[in-house]
């Protein structure tokens, strides 16, 4: 926990110069094959989970697990990228890369959450949405955009948790929540290091350089206001002790959902929009100073606030 403590207490200081190796290590940890996946958390945090299948339009996409369960005595809805652990399951799950069918199944679950006023928890862990011809023909772009809009409009409380790697629009499709939180050893980025390397370095072998440039660690995302909180993992990482990892997530999740329930629904929806409306950094007019990336929302001054900008 020492790294986390250091990172957390350092949040208002100068941007920490990220060590190349440290970032790369974070990426490896985020992708560790023994990390708990959504079904592992669901198994530990919920009772009587029932999965839904199919988008009612075209097919079922096993890359996304969607269902309802009981969490601390209340029914909740859960959507998560499920990567698969062994070769067979990875193939079955398509490595956690959803097609439009996946996001549309997710939206179907969101409709159920809306009908029954269920808290929604999303668990994000994907190298990205599936890049396939069929996915494009069936509207991958529109499915991701619609998924974001549907989350934005959902009346019940919503929490998005990055539990592994959160890459590209395929991750953000499930990320437009009241609170966005990252586990300690996870990443959130515009693209995977490999993808960024191929495009920006024109060389698929520069993934480490890309990772160092994107710096997509939880602590940085917290600083940038992209994550509202960082949830500690067991000392050796979530892969070493799934039960403890679930327990640590549970502590955050249970309290946060309870807090969000206390807020009036209209206010909750307005704040959710405001949270994403504010993210960004730019110069304006003659003064060249950087404006804040995102201001902390009024109701959450402590660990659920957005971060301060790096001084420039």
């Amino acid at each position: 926990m020492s790294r986390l403590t250091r990172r957390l207490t350092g949040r208002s200081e100068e941007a920490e110069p990220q060590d190349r190796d440290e970032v790369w290590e974070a990426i490896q940890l985020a992708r560790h094959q023994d990390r708990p996946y959504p079904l592992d958390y669901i198994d530990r945090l919920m009772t009587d989970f029932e999965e839904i299948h199919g988008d009612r339009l075209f097919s079922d996409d096993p890359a996304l697990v969607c269902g309802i369960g009981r969490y601390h005595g209340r029914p909740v809805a859960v959507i998560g990228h499920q990567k698969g652990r062994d070769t067979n399951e990875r193939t079955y799950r398509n490595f956690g890369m959803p097609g439009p069918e996946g996001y549309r199944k997710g939206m179907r679950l969101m409709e159920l959450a809306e009908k029954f006023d269920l808290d929604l928890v999303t668990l994000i862990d994907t190298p990205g949405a599936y890049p396939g011809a069929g996915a494009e023909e069936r509207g991958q772009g529109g499915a991701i955009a619609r998924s974001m809009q549907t989350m934005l409009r959902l009346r019940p409380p919503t929490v998005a948790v990055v539990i592994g790697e959160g890459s590209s629009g395929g991750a953000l499709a499930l990320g437009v929540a009241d609170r966005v939180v990252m586990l300690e050893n996870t990443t959130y980025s515009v693209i995977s290091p490999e993808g960024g390397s191929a495009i920006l370095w024109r060389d698929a072998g520069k993934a480490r350089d890309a990772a160092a440039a994107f710096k997509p660690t939880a602590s940085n995302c917290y600083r940038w206001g992209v994550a509202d909180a960082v949830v500690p993992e067991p000392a050796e990482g979530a892969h070493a002790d799934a039960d403890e990892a679930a327990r640590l997530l549970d502590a955050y999740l249970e309290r946060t959902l309870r807090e969000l329930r206390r807020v009036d629904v209209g206010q909750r929806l307005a704040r959710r929009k405001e949270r994403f409306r504010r993210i960004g950094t730019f110069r304006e007019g003659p003064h060249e100073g950087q404006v804040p990336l995102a201001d902390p929302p009024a109701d959450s001054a402590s660990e659920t606030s957005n971060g301060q900008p790096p001084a420039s």
Partner: protein
Amino acid sequence: MPPHIHISVDRLRRRRSTPPSKKPVGDGKACKACGAHFRAEELERNWGVCTTCDHHFPVSSSERITQLADGDEWRELWSELAATDPLRFTDLVPYTERVEQAEAKGVREALVVGELSVQGVPSLAAVMDFGFLGGSMGSVVGEKFARAADRCVETGRPLSVITASGGARMQEGVIALMQMAKTVVAIDDLREAAIPVVVVLAHPTTGGVWASFASMGDFTYAEPGALIAFSGPRVIEQTTREKLPPEFGLAESQLENGQVDAVVDRRELPGRIGSVLNILDRPRADIDDGAGRIARQGRERASRAAQALPKLSRRLRGRLGTGSDGGAE
């Protein structure tokens, strides 16, 4: 592999290993799938499922209710509603005669509704009976379904639906067609009142029933081998002159098509419906035992969700257009 990891797909595939065997029994029924013969009570004891090959025989609404309800708590509602003949309809036989013949068999209509308890959850059920004029939906079916929905809204109780129907009842003409809209109104009332609706699609669920309330459940399960379609295979083959594959429209295909949540063995239906109803039941303090539960349960049981994984057929992979060599971004 650490102990917390859920069981992966390939270990979970169950095979049906018993070979079909033919027993010559005089007074019983023969299995259409494997030819095995059963005495009526033998079959009923196994819920109308072939003990040799798991083929699901048709069962009546009263058998369904016996299977679904806890104990003897069933209370039928509005059983006195009966069909009229608004069009004075005659095809090969007058409609009134058809209705009388069907009623004479002991069921009053193609839909039976009532109050019961499912896995401890007080609720309502609406169960179709294919034996009554092919489970066709006329005014009585529409009215009973709507009243059941109203009762759910009044009492806050969930609704379980089991369908088996050839579609709208043609002998009631356009009035039967309108029952589709009427049941959709009922479904929308249930949505507004946040009432859970679990639908089970039995063989066959077609036409106007599939195109109205049957496709609008919050959770939708299908029995193995059930035909689920708006237009039946025969009509499609006649119109398009294409030859359909034998699995066309069957529950297993419709699962791959994303049209149902799971194909569920009849003997597992009450548990499965009960699970959904229990999850969506109001918050109960006695379940809330906090995070301590996590570690206790985590190591002990394999993920039930993981066990429920269907196998990835070549067909589904083709549908999604995903390859096994993917994975890099």
